[in-house]
């Protein structure tokens, strides 16, 4: 009798242990099954957006959408919004997709992730959605693949390098439009004992920025099919060797101890006038303003050679929303996407998110540096951020660090990039 007791208790304990895991599964399952199709009364929509710092804004906007759906189509929409930090978002998402548990709507990186997600069949074709007509023409290419629009761009940015307007004004400097003019600016700055460039190379993604800037500019300067040829193993980075012209100029005229300064150190130094320019994008604006709220800085395109027509601004898109083709509530999901770029309501949302405008009716007041960059975009002095595989971007970051610390030559870096792209092709060939 006693013994049966013991057996019973230990069995019970084991069951309890399992139940602990089971409870969780139960919760997520109610989400996937949903409650019938869009024609029914209640619909559960699962969203996965890697922008946790904007939770309040999204919650509010989703509430508006829910009210709108109820009023117009008499559908009760329940939204399960998940906002993981952007560092882990992509890994969590991939685990979900691999285990057939795709959210109805999720966010991916437009330039880096669309090609691989598209090939794996995880993106719904959105070309026929009403929001497509409203998109600015300059934004469309970033979310287009095989002539299909597969994502809704949320976060777009135009960038080149940042410059300290006060230093430039004090020394009567003009924003250089060619490499030679840049050299003169550097000389003047050196004469006045101001470090021309902020160098913060501890984190590999910062020197990495040179690659999209150079490749993008050289593609629009004439090497049109570079990306396509690289994807077919027919190109080589030796064609891009002239990118070291500007890289050498920046490296030779920067702040000391570059390999010890991270992004935040760089932002603080730049904000406090330790250097006049920084090859960096506006995504650091908040950090810079935190370090020095009074700084006046602008964005300008990085010159790559002596032709002023090749000095263009980089126009990229990062966070974008897509719809899963396996979604059971596709109609509601598509409604939500169209509402994200609603002519009437989305202006306020984008303004509160501090994102750049993506549709024609976005006419809110933006930051001065965004306006600077928009001038170039409107004059068509911009190119689309080239679609370079993430693995190649990682490689160039490390390569340029090694180049800076003189462990690799220019040719070593270019060779390593060729290999990284070939490896990428090998892995991603389907």
């Amino acid at each position, binding site marked *: 009798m006693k*013994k049966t007791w*013991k*057996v019973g208790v*230990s*069995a019970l*304990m*084991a069951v309890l*242990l399992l139940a602990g895991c089971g409870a969780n599964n139960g919760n997520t399952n109610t989400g996937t099954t949903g409650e019938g199709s869009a024609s029914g009364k209640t619909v559960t929509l699962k969203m996965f957006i890697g922008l946790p710092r904007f939770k309040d804004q999204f919650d509010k906007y989703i509430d508006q959408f829910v009210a709108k759906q109820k009023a117009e189509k008499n559908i009760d929409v329940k939204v399960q919004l998940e906002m993981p930090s952007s560092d882990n978002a992509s*890994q969590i998402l*991939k685990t979900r*997709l*691999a285990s057939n548990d795709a959210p109805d709507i999720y966010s991916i990186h437009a330039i880096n992730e669309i090609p*691989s997600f598209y090939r*794996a069949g995880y993106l719904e074709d959105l070309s026929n959605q009403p929001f497509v007509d409203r998109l600015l023409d300059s934004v469309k290419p970033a979310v287009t693949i095989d002539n299909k629009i597969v994502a809704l761009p949320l976060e777009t940015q135009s960038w080149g390098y940042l410059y300290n307007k006060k230093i430039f004004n004090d020394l009567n400097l003009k924003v250089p439009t060619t490499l030679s003019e840049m050299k003169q600016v550097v000389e003047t700055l050196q004469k006045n004992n101001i470090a021309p460039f902020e160098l913060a*190379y*501890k*984190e*590999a993604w910062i020197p990495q920025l040179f690659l999209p800037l150079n490749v993008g500019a050289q593609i629009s300067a004439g090497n049109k099919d570079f990306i396509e040829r690289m994807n077919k193993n027919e190109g080589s980075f030796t064609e891009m060797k002239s990118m070291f012209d500007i890289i050498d100029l920046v490296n030779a005229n920067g702040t000391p*101890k*570059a*390999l*010890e*300064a991270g992004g935040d150190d760089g932002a603080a130094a730049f904000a406090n006038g330790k250097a006049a320019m920084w090859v960096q994008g506006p995504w650091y604006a908040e950090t810079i303003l935190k370090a020095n709220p009074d700084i006046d800085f602008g964005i300008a395109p990085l010159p790559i050679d002596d032709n002023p027509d090749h000095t263009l601004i980089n126009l990229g898109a990062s966070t974008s929303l897509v719809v899963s083709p396996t979604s059971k509530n596709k109609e509601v999901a598509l409604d939500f996407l169209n509402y994200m770029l609603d002519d009437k309501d989305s202006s306020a949302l984008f303004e509160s998110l501090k994102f750049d405008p993506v549709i024609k009716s976005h006419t809110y007041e933006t930051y001065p540096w965004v306006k600077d960059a928009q001038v170039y975009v409107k004059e068509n002095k911009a190119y689309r951020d080239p679609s370079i*595989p*993430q*693995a190649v971007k*990682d*490689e160039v970051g*490390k*390569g340029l*660090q*090694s*180049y*800076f*610390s003189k*462990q*690799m030559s220019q040719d070593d870096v270019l060779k390593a990039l060729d290999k*990284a792209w070939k*490896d*990428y092709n090998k*892995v*991603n060939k*389907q």
Partner: protein
Amino acid sequence: MLKNTRKTLYLFYFVAPALLLYTVFMLIPTIGGMFYSITDWNGLNRNYNFVGFANFIEAIKEDPDFLNSLWFTLKYVVVMVVLQNALALLLAVFIESRTRFKGFFRTVFFMPNMISVIISAFMWTFVFTTVLPQLAEKTMMTFLDQSWIGDPRFSFFSIVIVSLWNGVGYMMIIYLAGLQGVPQSLKEAAVIDGANPFQQFRHITLPMITHAITICFFLTLNGAFKVFEVVFGLTGGGPGRATQVITMNIYEEAFSNNFRYGYASAKSVILFVIVLIITLIQIRITKRNEVEA
């Protein structure tokens, strides 16, 4: 007979929860990793192909980054195993030989071990990048003003210093426990026989603490092969890949470089085999030298 099987059954019930957790979180993922090491799965696609030993061959033959990181890790392992054990033993002997403030010194030297490795790495980043240069400026000791974590010539030593600072305390405690287990009578007998302090240490203390040495060598060896946080926090493997350790190379392959899960799994299996063989040899050798009082 029947009683015996029943007893085993009960024992099984008691270990069942732990065994279940171990199976779910350790055994299955390990076997899964070995399985993926012979595929070309990229972590995203639903399907994958079996490629046999191609991943292993590529890692050994065509991946200079992997071999470099392996070489760097081996250097680190040798330096760490020697220095960590020597320092820990030295500290333990020093503390054991004191009559007062034993507890104080024990606490002081053990304290760094209570700080998480990644946090101590960030603390030391501050020391290397801000404190040392300022010290150099104030005291005119200009040799201190180096690019301690940015220059590949110095960053290896910076990594070793931080790892030692963090890890020595733990080994010291194990050695202290070993030292306290050495019977006083043996030491006294040696003194009567006319042994000097060095001879006492060499012929009495050292043989009596070999079990502690076995454990400490095993722990340091294992830990040094699997080092990640210190390097990640200090240099991030940079500049370039100059200080990339093997775990970091695997991480990069699986999570940032094309997401080659299959290939990264193969590298993990290689690391596993290396660590397994080396620790087995180490345990066999040190065990052979263990003596009973």
